[in-house]
């Protein structure tokens, strides 16, 4: 039975203690409000639309690691894998609002969507305008069922936060940002594969067990199992199974440009992530698709899951310019 112990005190305090340590580690970037819990920039912006995101904890550096110039104005962390409350979101949004409204970047999960929608109503009562960009990039949950919960939101949220963050910094208004974020989200797809599940704080059992010859194909970022198991194999065999459906779903044609994100799910080593990226590159080269911008690292994790995701974002000149714009956050700076 794989044992997965963690460095922690009481499991219930993991998030609040981590937030305290995080804020102390990045005093020039962020400031923590303890109750309700949210993180804002250390030097709040004064005249721009506020870009705010949030969701369950356990995905670090997402979202708190992306608070800073050029990305988020505030991040709202929930408990591990649980949505923040609407009151947290309202408080963070009001702290970040400069009077020009608030863009909520929300990963598509029932709880997150519900609480951000409620927060939007609460904010309206306070006279604060807000709107939601729903990020729903996980191709593994694309059932085509219009009545269902839709695709989950995963690593494409980083692209949405980067691009909208940069546009907001340049003065774009809320309508423009909402349209831009929705465009990025609509043109993003992700597939994730796990070699081993992570374990919840305080638990030593991973959230599922995998036989030696299988990978969890199309896994989510909350320790839930995928719909499919496939044969374990070398990256040269696994990666095309991930990238090919993304290309098809986005209907990417020869000569098109993408942002490609290879993301570690928590316990996957850089050596592996860069190897995976090499395979992504080989595949896309073969398809005549140009990786205009690469991003490789562990940005959206699922606790200590051994796994990785590949995200493709169709890019145009506007998106690339915003992607290249400066950012200064704990997790992403250029």
């Amino acid at each position: 039975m794989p044992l997965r112990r963690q460095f922690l005190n009481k499991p219930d305090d993991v998030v609040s203690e981590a937030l305290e340590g995080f804020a102390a580690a990045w005093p020039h970037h962020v400031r923590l409000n303890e109750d309700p819990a949210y993180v804002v920039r250390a030097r709040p912006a004064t005249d721009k639309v506020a870009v705010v995101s949030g969701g369950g904890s356990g995905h670090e550096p997402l979202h708190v690691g992306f608070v800073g110039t050029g990305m988020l104005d505030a991040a709202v962390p929930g408990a591990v894998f649980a949505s923040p409350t609407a009151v947290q979101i309202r408080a963070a949004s009001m702290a970040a609002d400069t009077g020009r409204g608030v863009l909520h970047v929300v990963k598509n999960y029932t709880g997150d969507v519900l609480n951000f929608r409620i927060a939007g109503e609460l904010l309206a009562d306070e006279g604060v305008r807000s709107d939601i960009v729903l990020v729903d990039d996980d191709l593994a949950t694309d059932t085509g069922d219009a009545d269902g919960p839709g695709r989950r939101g995963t690593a494409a949220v980083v692209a949405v936060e980067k691009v909208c963050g940069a546009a907001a910094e340049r003065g774009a208004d809320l309508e423009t940002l909402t349209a831009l974020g929705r465009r990025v989200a609509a043109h993003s797809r992700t597939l994730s594969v796990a070699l081993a599940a992570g374990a919840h704080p305080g638990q030593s059992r991973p959230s599922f067990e995998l036989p030696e010859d299988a990978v969890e194909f199309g896994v989510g970022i909350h320790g839930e199992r995928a719909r499919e198991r496939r044969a374990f194999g070398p990256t040269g065999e696994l990666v095309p199974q991930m990238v090919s459906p993304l290309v098809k779903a986005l209907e990417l044609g020869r000569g098109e440009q993408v942002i490609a994100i290879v993301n570690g799910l928590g316990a996957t080593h850089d050596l592996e992530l860069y190897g995976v990226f090499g395979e992504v590159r080989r595949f896309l080269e073969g398809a005549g698709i140009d990786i205009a911008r690469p991003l490789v690292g562990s940005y959206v994790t699922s606790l200590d899951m051994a796994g990785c995701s590949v995200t493709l974002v169709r890019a145009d000149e506007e998106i690339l310019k915003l992607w290249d714009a400066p950012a200064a956050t704990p997790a992403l700076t250029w």
Partner: protein
Amino acid sequence: MADQLSPAHVERWVHGFVDAVEEAGDHLTDLDRRSGDGDFGTNMVTALRRSREVLAGADTSTAGAPFQVMGETFLAHSGGTSGPLFGMWFRDFGKVGADAGALTLAMVAEATANGWATLARLGSAKVGDRTMVDAIAPASEALATAVDDGSGLVEGLRSAAEAARRGADGTSDLLGRRGRTSYVGESALGSPDPGAVTIALFYRTAVEAATA
């Protein structure tokens, strides 16, 4: 028998509701175990107890105040699907009674209609989806009829409570189409939806508060 709910009546209603849910907590959790993930009662009781504590120190001089406190408490502290939904539900009652010295039957009917609309807007649940909306909708219709008919407060609340109970009971025969219960399919049949049962308790305790 009151024909308006004074702030004291509303407080009694709210405390009666907290007590009733506390008493039914294990049963509600069990219902959620059959049709979801088995945390409903526990979450509900935790949030209600917290509300009771906050209420003890809060200014409740208007008829809406207790509901405003409950709304904020649920929105600030309660997780899961039902927590924020109940938060918005209580909030609509708080709004209707915000500056009022008492709640009339028409105001209860208005709050119920608003709350139904809010929940439908937020959770996209329609009647028949096996959610608390299946208790809210008949209660709302009963209240509207009572107001139209010029019924008295207690009579109107009684008809709402009766309608809500019947609606809740009826969820036993429904297949879930919203929330977690949509994943369990037929195995939930035979037990009612815990959210709907809780709404029925909400109107039952209103009657008790008005008649006590």
